[in-house]
Each structure stands twice: as C-alpha cells, then as structure tokens.
C-alpha cells in the first residue's frame, strides 16, 4: 500500500449521472474522498449506494460528469490500478467447499500474490479478523458474521490502498458491527482509504465523512459533526428554568442574543427550553450568564446541558428538510 499523500484525494466525483430509467439511477453525484479517511455512505435500501460504489469500481460508466478514482477514470483501470483496490460485495461470494484459508488465498491469487506472501499475510489477517482458529473450516460451515469477516480478510489480502465495502454490517449483531468498525478504523489509521455503505445511520459516527443519499441523490456530504450541525442548525443546549413562569421572558432575552440561532419550548414540559447555538460547549456559559445575570434578568436555571442528538435524528431531519425543499419547489 502506498503512503498517504497530504491533501491527496482518492475519489473525486463531479456531477456524475447514471440513469437506468425514469427516477432510477444516480443523479448529479458530487463528492470527494481524501486518502486515509473513511467515507460512510448512508441511505435507505435502493437509494443508489451500490450503484455509486459500482461506478467508482469501474463496473458502470458514468453517463455524465467526471469521476476519478486514484487519479484515473475507473472504466480505464489497468490491472495494476485494480491491484490497489479491494472490494467486499453485499453478498457472500466465497466458496462453500473451500476452507477459510483456501478462500482467502484464492482471492489473494486473483491479485497476483505469490504463495509465500499469501501465507504470511493470511496468518496475520486471519488473526486480525479473529478467524485464525477457524482457518481450516469450510466456507459452508461459517456463521454469517464469520463469512463477513472472511470477506474482509480476502479483500485485504493484497493490501489495497482503497477498500470498498458494500453494506458490510448488514444483518449482523451490534457487537460484531462494532468490531467491524474497529477493523475499519484501524485500517484507516494505517493509511488506507475506505468507502463504506450502510443502512445503519448510527454508524455515521465512525466515519470521517458521511454522505447521505436518497433516491439517487446525495443530500449531504460532510464530517459527522458538521452534518449534525447542518441538520439541526447547530448544537442544542437544553435547560430547565427554576421558575416556569419566566419562560416567555427567557425566550425573549435569548432571541435577541446574537450567538443564539433559535429558541424552542415544549408545551408539555413547563420551564424547558432548547437553545440552538453553533457550538454548545463554547456558548453554554455565555448563554447561562445572559439569563442569570444578577444585574439583568436574574433567571435561575436549575439544570442545563448539551442535548444529545442521535444520527437517526440527524438523518430524519435531513430527510424532512429534503421533503420540505421538494414540496417548496413543486409548489
């Protein structure tokens, strides 16, 4: 695997279209994936994640736009280019009548690795994915999780610089899913670039960049934190006032305070406020000072903290915003 170049981009996609039919395909895909990072592509089933991966692998040719992977057009990959790429497809495509070791060696041989290199890497990689003890077990005798790990080991045998994994955590339990992300982050830490698709929204937290996809379009591409901020309009400070009767007064004061982007009350929770700011950690003391200033309003806040926002909420919010946009545009 070649060393990570500073500011180098593994994948650069600009306005890429691949249309299979009315409403089917991917449209106007623009994203980039820096080398040595993980891009998580999140979206519901059938939204175009696999098509995006297949475009980047050169299995499909874009109908419009520019797509470069490792500095080349994927459809023009040479065998040497392909040796830099690893791929874990959605389904288990290794052989049930071959052992774990034979399956991994088969994939390694496809990438031109000699027997000696294979043996050394095989032991290390099987240890890495915790399949060493099962190395002589047939593919047909593996559990779903073991099959996925074997696929990962196979895809890493030739030490690819860029790894594509199409829903590698689909259908496996949360513990194993967490372990998979450990593997991926370790691979990232070693300098590899990973493009991972998933339907599990909460996995966005493990990625360096997250692309949210719906109906063949990328709705957002950013770091998980930025994505959260963008979706929610910033970070949210939640607080409860000691005197619920002073909520209106507090809202009025905070709305006039410049760093505050929005203030929200909940009718079923008297004295409860949600205050949106750019950075909750940075602005929380200031917000509290404005309310509790003894020379000012002197509103006592009984409790305050950053509102934990799940990526499910972020995802839903992004979807809702997209729906609203579409309705606005159609209106």
């Amino acid at each position, binding site marked *: 695997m070649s060393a990570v170049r500073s500011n180098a981009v593994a994948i650069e996609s600009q306005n890429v279209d691949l249309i299979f039919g009315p409403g089917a395909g991917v449209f106007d895909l623009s994203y980039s994936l820096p080398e040595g990072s993980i891009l998580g592509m999140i979206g519901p089933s059938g939204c175009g994640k696999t098509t995006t991966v297949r475009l980047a692998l050169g299995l499909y040719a874009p109908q419009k736009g520019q797509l470069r992977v490792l500095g080349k057009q994927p459809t023009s990959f040479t065998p040497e280019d392909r040796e830099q790429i690893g*791929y874990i497809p959605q389904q288990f495509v290794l*052989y049930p009548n071959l052992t774990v070791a*034979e399956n991994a060696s088969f994939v390694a041989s496809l990438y031109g690795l000699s027997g000696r290199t294979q043996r050394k*890497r095989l032991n290390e990689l099987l240890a890495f994915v915790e399949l060493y003890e099962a190395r002589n077990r047939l593919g047909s005798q593996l559990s779903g999780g073991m099959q996925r790990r074997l696929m990962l080991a196979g895809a*890493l045998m030739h*030490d690819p610089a860029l790894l594509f994994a199409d829903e590698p955590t689909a259908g496996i339990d949360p513990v194993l899913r967490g372990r998979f992300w450990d593997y991926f982050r370790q691979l990232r830490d*070693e300098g590899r670039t990973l493009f991972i698709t998933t339907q599990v929204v909460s996995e966005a937290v493990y990625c360096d960049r997250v692309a949210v996809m719906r109906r063949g379009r990328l709705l957002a591409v950013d770091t998980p934190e930025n994505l959260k901020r963008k979706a929610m309009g910033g970070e949210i400070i939640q607080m409860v006032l000691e005197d619920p009767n002073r909520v209106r007064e507090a809202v009025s004061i905070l709305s006039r305070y410049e760093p505050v982007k929005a203030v929200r009350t909940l009718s079923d929770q008297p004295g409860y406020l949600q205050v949106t700011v750019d950075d909750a950690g940075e602005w929380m003391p200031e917000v509290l000072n404005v309310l509790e200033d003894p020379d000012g309003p002197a509103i006592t806040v009984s409790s305050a903290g950053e509102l934990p926002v799940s990526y499910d909420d972020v995802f839903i919010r992004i979807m809702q915003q997209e729906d609203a946009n579409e309705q606005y545009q159609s209106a």
Partner: protein
Amino acid sequence: MSSTNPPERSVQTASPVKRPRFALTRWLIRVRAYLMKELYELRRQPLLILSLVGGPLLVLLLFGTTFRNSNPVLRTVLITPPGGVPGISIDQIRALAGTNFQIVGVSEDLDSAQAQLDSGEIDVIQVFPDDVMGMVQRGESPQISFLSNAINPVTEGWIQYLAYAQVNEINKAFLQQQTETAQQEASGIKLRLVDTRVQILELEQQTTPEKQREAQEDLRTLRADLERLESQLPRQETSILAKIDFADLRRRIDITKENIDLIDRSISDGTLDQHLNKVRDTNQELARIEELLNLFIELPPDRVVAPVRQTYSNLRGQAYQAVIYYTPGVLALLVQHTAITLGALALIRERLLGAFEVFRVAPVSITQLLLGKYIAYTLFVALMTALMVGGLYLMGVPFLGDMLQLALLCFLLTLASLGIGFLISAVSSSDSQAIQLAMITLLLSIFFSGFFISLDSFALPAQIISTIIPMSHGVSGLQNLMLRGISPSYLAWVALGILTLISFVAVVLITRRQLAKA
C-alpha cells in the same frame, strides 16, 4: 499454516505486500488461482465424482457383460395341415424352421396359435400349405405364411428377413430333392436309352416287322421317360455354373421326341424305309443325350441347387466380444460426459454465486478464468481416464495402438467436450438447466456418435450433427487405436481441434458479455 498459535494482533493489520516483479508471473498466478480452486472443490465432492464416473460406468459395464447379440429370439409356432405336410416330416420342418426361429410348438390349430400371438406368448406363426410337394410338382408356388403382431420395427425387419432366409433354405431343400429325383430318373432312362439305341441300330439295318414293333414299343416308353425327365431337369440358369447346357439337352430331347413320333408313325404305316435318315439322326441325338445325362448324373445335387458358395474368414482371427468392442465407446462416453458435466456447472455456479462481480473488480481476465478451469478439469479428467485405461488394461482389454496418440486423442476429446460444457454453462440460466442440457447432449451422443448405431444408418442431417459431437470422433479414434492398432482418422484430429477452438472462442465471447453485465 503450519503454526497453531495465532500471530499477535498489532496496530499494523498485516505485513506489507511484496508483489512478484514480472507481470507474467502475476498472470500465471491468477490462472493458478482458478486451477487450484477447482481442484480443491473437486476433491471435496467425492459423491459428485462417483456419480459422474461411477454411474455411467456401472450401467455400461452391465450392458457390456450381459449383451449377447442383437438378433431377437422369435418364439414360433408351426401350423401344419391335418396329418402333417405330405413328403416332409415334422422333424424336417423343425430343422428347417428352427435355424432362425425358436420353435415352441407344432400345431394344427391356427386359432389357438393366434390367441397365443395376441397374448404375447409367441412372436411368430408359420403356416404351412396342405400339399407343398404336390404343388411344387404341379408347377405351382406354395406359400408359407408368416404371421406376427410385432410393434418393434427392428423385430419386424428381422422376422421378414429370417422368413426370407428360411424360405430360401426350404426352396434349396426342394430343389436338391428334385434334382436327386431327376438324377435317379436319368440313371434309369440312360439304361433304357442304351437298349433303345441298339434297337434303333437294328431299325437302320432293315429289321423284321416284329423287331420293328418291339422297337416301336421301346421308343414309346423312352419318349414318355424323356418327357418326364424334361419336366424334372433343373432350371436353365443353373446350367452355366453346372457346366451342363440344360437348354441344349431339352432341345435335343424335343428333337428326339419328334423323331421318335415320326419313326413311330412310319413303323405303323410301313414307311420306315423312307425315314431311315431320321432313324440315324435319332441315334446320334440319343448318343448326345446319353453323354449329357452322364454329366448330369455325376453332378453333385447341391452344386446344381446352389452353384455359388461363400467362404468367410476374419483376417484378425475373429471379431472381439461385444464387451470389448464397446469398450472404446464407453471410454469416449465417460470422458465426454464427465468433461461436459464439469464444464456445464463451472460458469453458471460462479455467475449465480455472484463471483463474476468480484472477478470484474479484480485484475483478472476472462482468459485467465477459463484457462484455470480448463487446466483443472483437464487434469481431473486425465487422471480419471488414466485410471480407467489402467483398469481396462488389467482386465485384458487390448490397446494395440500408440499410447501417445491415445493420450493425445483423449486430451483433445476432453478439451472439445469441456468447450461444449462451458458453452452450455454460458447459455444456461440455472444449475438445473445446465444439467438438463448436459443430459440432452449425452442422449444425443449415444444416438448420433456411432456408439451403438452406425452413423451410416442415418440421413445426412444426423451425420452432420454427429460431426459436432466430440464423442463421434472419440469413439472412432479410440476404436482404431485400441482395437485395430491404427491411428485415428485425419478427420477425427481436425474435427476435435476445430471443436475445441470454436467452443473456446464462443465461450470467451459469451462470458465476456456476461461479465460486463455482472
């Protein structure tokens, strides 16, 4: 993986990869990947191998060891007239009919025999006419009726052929008997003819009226004898081969009868003096007839009946037993069937598994994929063939030809068959469809490869089909090599080579298109 302790997990997932320097080395490693994968998979499927090789081998072994000949056994009841056939004993009839038919009964009850025929207890009824000998003697053609209710066209053909052969034999027996009778008759006539000639000599010398009347009586007897003999003489067409001109004999008999009539009349009306020249002519004719009769009497009757005889000798000593004769065909069938079945499943399973997608992403080509599979399956079929050839050799099956040519022929047969198998795999959309097509190919091969039925038995379209079946060339080539000790025909080498090439190109094109869609 000799070590049993797993390596420690470290920050570095695994050691850096050192790739082979030369592109060709990497190319060959990729071919080897498919080769080894296929061999591992085959090794793990002993039941598949057993059913692939053992199944057809057992069936054909059973056929080879139990097959006797292709002539059907025809159970026959003879229907004779009440009281039997005049002039022929039942034993004689049994002997004549039993050569080709298995006589299970002799009866006079046709209805009962027909009931047996209807129920399938017997296959043929032979009905003899009332008076065979009498009809023959009267110049009529008696008919022996053969009745059957065969549904198998081959069996019906055999019945018709065997009936024809039997009637030929009966005709020969009649002719021989007739000739023997004629020869006996001729012997008697010859003696009388000598006496008559003495009397004719006396007539020439102006004998007494008493002597003339005696001679007249003898001449009349001789005339009747000659007439009877004339009717019993063999047919004219046998005369050339029997070195006797029966037409000349008949002509002389006719002249002599006319002369005798004239002499008879001249004796009666006392004008013999005026016809003495006829008397001399008659004497000369009788002398010639006597010579011809001598030739006829000395002739063996069977030479008259069947002047042409056949001899047969097999220059190799004798033909092989059926089990030996069919062995090269069985070998060709097993090689082809195994290769086609392996090939037929090879690509479709990869396609259904989704492996084509992985192959497209990896730096491998369709040529490497196919080469790897070709080599793996060829090695497997070669091993299987070597084991079978060894087994057959130990069992005493002859291998008269060059073993190198045999190996090369089996190699080409395997490649051509694999090509057909891969082609089946490439066009099939499921495992079961591929197996079905492989079985259809097997059936097609059994019927149209010359394995059981000679290719000459088929019309041109089927003969063309046979040329695109690898086994056709395998059967003829292996028969030549193993049983005759000669090289396979030029056509066999060329056809197998072309089939290998065309099928490979077709598979590459089709699979490349499928890979592009994967």
